[in-house]
């Protein structure tokens, strides 16, 4: 983790291609704070040195990487995570933790069991809706789709999630309908 606020944090990946998927559930340890991946960026390590287009004569992307082995060291992947809850005294709380996660703590991808345990309650949807991200609808859609596959009864989970969303968005049917279409199996 390289950056931290009360509502979100940014983590840097060890591998260039190692970023989690949009909407995926991740966790920091000590203390356990859960979040949903909201934005993945791949950028130059040094913002003063913009990336140049290469491989004019190359046949494929692999050729470009092979010919420029330094690229993997000059670029990095970072991802922004919106905090969706934390564990307090062994109990999952789907609201913001009292303190932001510590910089330099490790971030892990959650296992299906963890996802299914964490998403038995869906208050995180409200946190995401109000996260202020310009593409919150996309994050929610992706998050629900991914979480559904971790549940034993994906259809029940989907129906439950949609009902929760409908209650949250009871005053904005257009937005709700847009999210539902992204979630629909």
């Amino acid at each position, binding site marked *: 983790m390289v950056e931290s606020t009360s509502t979100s944090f940014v983590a840097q990946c060890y591998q260039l291609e190692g970023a989690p998927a949009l909407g995926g559930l991740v966790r920091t340890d000590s203390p356990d704070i859960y979040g949903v991946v909201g934005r993945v960026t791949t950028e130059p390590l040094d913002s003063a040195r913009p990336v140049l287009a290469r491989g004019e004569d190359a046949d494929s992307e692999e050729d470009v990487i092979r010919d420029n082995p330094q690229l993997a060291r000059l670029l990095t992947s970072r991802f922004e995570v919106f905090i969706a809850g934390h564990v307090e005294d062994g109990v999952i709380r789907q609201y913001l933790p009292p303190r932001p996660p510590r910089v330099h703590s490790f971030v892990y991808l959650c296992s299906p069991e963890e996802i299914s345990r964490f998403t038995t309650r869906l208050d995180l949807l409200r946190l995401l809706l109000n996260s202020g991200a310009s593409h919150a609808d996309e994050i929610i859609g992706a998050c629900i789709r991914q979480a559904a596959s971790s549940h034993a009864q994906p259809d029940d989970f*989907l*129906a439950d999630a*949609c*009902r929760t*969303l*409908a*209650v949250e*968005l*009871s*005053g*904005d*049917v*257009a937005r*709700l*309908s847009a999210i*539902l*279409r992204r*979630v*629909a*199996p």
Partner: protein
Amino acid sequence: MTQPHETNGTSGVQVGPAQGQRLGMVIEGSVANGVEVRLDPGVSVEQVKVGTFVTIQGVGARFFGVVTDVSLSSTDPRLKYTPLPVDDSFVIQALQGTIAFGTVSVLPQLTMPDVLGDEQGPAPAKSIPSHFSRTFTASQQDVEMVFGSEADGNFWIGSPLDMETKLCLDLGELVKRSIGVFGKSGTGKTFLARLLLAGILQSGQTSSLIFDMHSEYGWQGQDTDKGVTVKGLKQLFGAKVSTFTLDEEHSRRRGLSTDETVQLGFNHIEPQDIELLRESLNLSEVAASAAYNLREKYGEESWLKEFLDAGRGGSLLELAEELQVNAGALRALYNRMGRFTRHGFMVEHSRVDTAARILEHLERGQHVVLEFGRYGDDEAAYILVSNLLTRRIHRKYVEAKESAMGGSGKEPRPLLIVIEEAHKFLSPSVASQTIFGIIARELRKYNVTLMVIDQRPSGIDPEVLSQVGTRFSCLLDNERDIDAVLSGTPGSRALRSVLARLESKQQALVFGHALPLPVVVRIRDYGPKFYETIQGGGDSEEEKKRKVEELFGG
């Protein structure tokens, strides 16, 4: 506290709301307009019908009410302008019951005792259940508690909408006030009336006198839809019912024997009768009031006969001069009366007092059906005969009642008089004069009540209509008729929508004195199954006691 609902309400997937199924919760309301109930996501508006009974479990009390309206609602007012993927069942399913939901309007009518079988019964609701109170469809038990059960001696008239429960009426209460049976033609008024009469006859507390315009109540009636004949009261109750007829020939043609033939003498006709017939005989006011002058001249007994004689003798002009009435008017009166008195049941002088004969039967605890035969289509004959007889019978009742009040006589037996085409007797212009208007107004002071059967309730004097205690209304579609039937009923606005949506057959909205709350009834079949319940009946305990008392001078 016992709540039978909760156990069977939540189990599994249900196709329709079974009795006692949970429907939703209260979200707003007022005592005046009833409460709004938001339906649960699993309950479709299509399953809830107007007129259905529901119970609402409030914090401190259980309410019993009736659904008066069903509507669609939404949390987002923009819903109706937002294009939605209607073919995408996933999206639609998520919206249903959350953003788009159904509501039902419920009029809480009664509060129920918390414990079943409690001494105190349901009481009129003076408040409404609080927010989020849960709402259920009424169970069989609830309905029985509210309307009484057949086991308690009530009369089963049908079932509430969408329920198999027997809905019962307290006939004792019913006949205490006048009864109205309304509905446009072909909606089953006659069947309903016949059913009610059978119940009243069976209960044996009241005698009834039926002016049977189309000969449908006495021996047998016609079911024109099914093309079969149905049993009349005489067939069902035998000796308990006496049939009188105006038209012996008609009865004979139908192969029926009647108990007595009615003949009316000219001496029985009074000037008030002429006044009443003014409209049907198309007489001017002057002509009708000339009858009073004639009576003054010739005396009560023979004024009509003398007048007709004078007319035949050609001395009408002199008579007009003598009485100082318009000669043309007098001639008109003569012509109309001349034609009218040629009816077969009219005789110049009758010694038999038909009214007294009928009374004898009634006092014996019998019920009298007066068949009009072919005169049924003659409006004037029907009005004249029924008025004439009723006036006399009523007079006797008043006398009997007054002497009973003075302590020197027996209380007269309650009497229910049944008239059809009631708007002809009780229209605002004549209601003040006819005996029926008087009976309707003075209520049961003299133990006489009315059952009016009519298809144009708007033609009935509002003052009379307001005195009708219990109203049975089959389908009505004329706005004015609906207004008339519902006038003076609390919550009439809500009932309007119920009344206009009745099915055209075998359904009636029943409300008023004999019922704790308005109810839509699917009237039970009047057929072989019904006959069985009657023949098994016989005399009630009360009736037996009364007969014994009568025999031994009680």
